[in-house]
């Protein structure tokens, strides 16, 4: 089971839960199952089959950007973070 | 010599880095424009076009000037030294070498102005204090280095030049 950290403003969809456990071999599978378990949540993360513009996924501390095919380990920790620019 | 010719342009005879140079310029063109756009001497840069940044520094008849604030026709009969004339065929000027060794540049766009200005300083005062270097270079803006390594480079070059003199 991967642990998905839910961004604060989206916790309404998870009944306030900050973390949820979801089965999935890739980031995409996890997002799809999130949507199934918590209707509306997946749609805030993914749009037209891609991570919404401006979001990056972090898997076990690694910034995998928008690569939804990234494979997960059974104990993976998954974050969705706004992408940053810089000067 | 400056002679107005029919097109409204002015024929200017001057000396740049020891060579006689003739050019035609509109009276409204600055010395910086003529150096860069007519004569291909692009080492002097435009940073502000009103004398506040020093990126266009050249020496005119022994005086450090902002070439953006000099009309090109004023160069008639003058002797002008630009960054292109600082190194010799034998090698770099000690200031140029010192800037390299002291990492006294980052983006490099202000560097020609600083080197021209610093050379003018050392010709007037071969043994400046740190304060005197900072005072003299206060007409040159650098946004990258914080000036620390530039000031050290100028002091370092001054020391080398005194040792060689």
């Amino acid at each position, binding site marked *: 089971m991967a642990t998905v950290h839910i961004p604060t*403003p*989206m916790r309404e969809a998870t009944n306030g839960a900050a973390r949820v456990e979801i089965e999935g071999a890739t980031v995409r599978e996890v997002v799809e199952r999130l949507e199934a378990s918590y209707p509306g949540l997946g749609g805030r993360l993914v749009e037209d089959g891609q991570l919404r513009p401006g979001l990056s996924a972090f898997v076990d501390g690694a910034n995998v950007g928008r690569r939804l095919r990234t494979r997960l380990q059974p104990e993976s920790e998954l974050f969705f973070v706004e992408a940053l*620019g810089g000067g | 010599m400056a002679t107005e010719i029919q097109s409204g342009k002015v024929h200017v005879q001057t000396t740049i880095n020891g060579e006689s140079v003739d050019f035609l310029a*509109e009276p409204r063109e600055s010395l910086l424009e003529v150096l*860069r756009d007519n004569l291909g001497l692009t080492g002097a840069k435009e940073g502000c*076009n009103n004398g506040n940044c020093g990126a266009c520094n050249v020496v005119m008849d022994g005086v450090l000037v902002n070439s953006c604030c000099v009309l090109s026709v004023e160069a008639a009969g003058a002797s002008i030294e630009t960054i292109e004339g600082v190194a010799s065929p034998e090698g770099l000027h000690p200031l140029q070498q010192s800037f390299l060794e002291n990492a006294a540049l980052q983006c490099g766009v202000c*560097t020609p102005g600083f080197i021209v200005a610093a050379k003018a300083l050392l010709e007037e005062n071969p043994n400046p204090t740190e304060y005197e270097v900072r005072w003299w270079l206060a007409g040159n*803006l650098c946004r*990258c280095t914080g000036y620390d390594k530039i000031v050290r480079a100028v002091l370092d070059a001054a020391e080398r030049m005194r040792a060689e003199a």
Partner: protein
Amino acid sequence: MAVDTRVGQTIKHHDEEYKVIGTRPIRHDGLEKVTGEARYGSDINLPGQLHGKVLRSPHAHARIVSIDTSRAEALDGVRAVITSAAFPDPGDKLTGGGEAPGLPLKFKSANMLARGKVHYHGHAIAAVAAANPHVAAEALKLIDVEYEVLDPVLEVWDAMKPDAPVIIEDLYTAKADGTTAEEPSNVAAEMLYEVGDVDAGFAEADLVVDREFTFGVVHQGYIETHNATAHWLKDGHLHVWCSSQGAFTIRQELADLLDHPITKIHVVPMEIGGGFGGKTTAYLEPLAALLSRQTGHPIKMAMDRADVLKATGPTPGGYVRVKLGVTNDGMITAGYANLAFDAGGYPGSVVGAGCRCVFAPYNMPNAKVEGFDVVVNKPKTHAYRAPGATHAEFASETVVDEICRTLDIDPVEFRLQNSAKEGDWQLAMPPYPRIGHIECMEAARDSAQWQTPLETAPGKKRGRGIASGFWFNIGFTSSVTAKLNSDGSVTLLEGSTDIGGTRTSIAMQFAETLGIPVEDVDPIVADTDSVGQTDVTGGSRVTFATGLAAHNAANDMKDQIVEGLADLWDVAADSITHADGTFSANGNSATVGEAAGLLEEEGVFPIGKNTVTPTREGGAFAVHIADVEVDDETGKVEVLRYTAVQDAGVAIYPPYVEGQMQGGVVQGVGWALNEEYVYDDDGHLLNASLLDYRMPTALDVPNIETIIVEVPNPGHPYGVRGVGEVPIVPPPAAMANAIHDATGVRMSHLPMSPARVQAALAAEA
């Protein structure tokens, strides 16, 4: 041995020994830069070129009723005049890759040339191509524009009021929860970040300090003004020479804005005279391209300084509120922050990054941060060195100082006991990997300046301040192609425009990996047709990410050399060892140079290449100490002494790491003490020159003492952390804390200009 005062101190927290990394070679591009031979964007001139100029709005907020270009077109020497009608309709498209992907393209397009409405003083209205710049400037005066002038909204707190004039009529707030507001407003986006239980945290606190801060707009102030030269060939190929932090970014923006195939766009990065985040986006390039298409000639354009200040992307002004709760023994229990930044005339400020940095140096059990991106009638703002972090941490580090004073706790001890460290929670991010805030704080505590009591002088108000700073590193994508020449030298093509010596920091990582002297590597910043995808020079990413690509490319080349030698020596490839630049197996050995010669005989020319999108960027911390003297008559603040401490991971090229630290400090001092856009009530920028927008000179600052701390980033083979941005973060707070130490007055606005300091002193007295 005499101490070399040119070299700062380095404190290593690792045992790695390198041959090339950490040395101080002369940079590869240095010679051309000290002789004036280096070619910057404005130094190019093409046969047959015309010159372009831009007409700018005299109003901050106005509807464009009509534009009549006929008188300008009739002027002798004028070849073309364009307005926003020359741009394709952006429709509902979003921007592609680059700095801020996913924003509506219509905003970017309208910022190139105003579409129907003017959003700020200086907004581009029309562009002219003419035989020379003077004729082009004359033509601008002959363009007749009729405006319906509207009331401007200049500050975020006014723009957020319910009855504020709405600048963009169809702008609906993007809410933090992913929904959209139903009524239009000037608030483009809201964000919310939270960890723990902030109410419970404040309930546990013995002391709560809650303060508000405001900020003027500041500009990056690069010395080279924006410029672009474009040549649109009749077959649709578009060649662009420009001064940008990212040639590939400009290519993407041109493709988006002009709806033109990316394969037909070729961008040549010229040397760039500073950027600091302000040259990450196009302004002149699309205009030059369109004028070139219309005239058939190459078009050269350059902004003057007033254009740069009025109409490029300064960094936001705005508002920050910080509330911190602590126990009596100085442990943080909770933090709350509220940040509202002005985006300028179109959405997209750096407030999100500010939100995520505001408490970054501390382990925050409970924190809540809200952010607002607000449209106002000022130029569209952009990144400036650690974008958003300086505002945010000026506020939080000032509050931390106040807490230390109130509780009589040493500010170093407070920061040490609350410091963020590996494994601690980060706001809206995975937990911190190995970071070096504690090591930086310890180095600051042990520094010569901190250990030397402040020298007092009769009648003088002197004080000392300390502050921490954090900024992320950005990964993005970088590419390197390296060619082994037959003499063993390497030509290294990389795509990162070099603003401060990164050709050498990249080459050093290549040289270290292959085991050759860095002088044998010739690093070249290549154009978009000649090297793989490389994102913008920004986010402190070049030495980290392009350096990683160079390391990987060197390993690729090494593998190819091994393969060639295995064939030649008739041994198994895996029996060949590589050490100190020498390949050996079975009694055979060859240096890289000898191997290159042997392989040439075989017709083998290794090309090492790599494109990488790193996934483990290292965050960077800095701690600064400022000693100041405050003139209580004039309010002028003088910097007496300054020490900058920074975790560089591993400093690849130390003189230029020090240079970044020193340069960041002085920009931060300018921001702290003087720099600010001054507007009148109608939204006119009053100080659009370098006389009136006054940046620090050599006479305004002392030497900046540096201490490089090396806590390697585990996400990079050589431990690199980006160093370029974080040194601008601590200076304003360190200065404010020093001013308080000197005078007892807390400053709550940047800049802390003489007039403001004097007013604050008078109010206190």
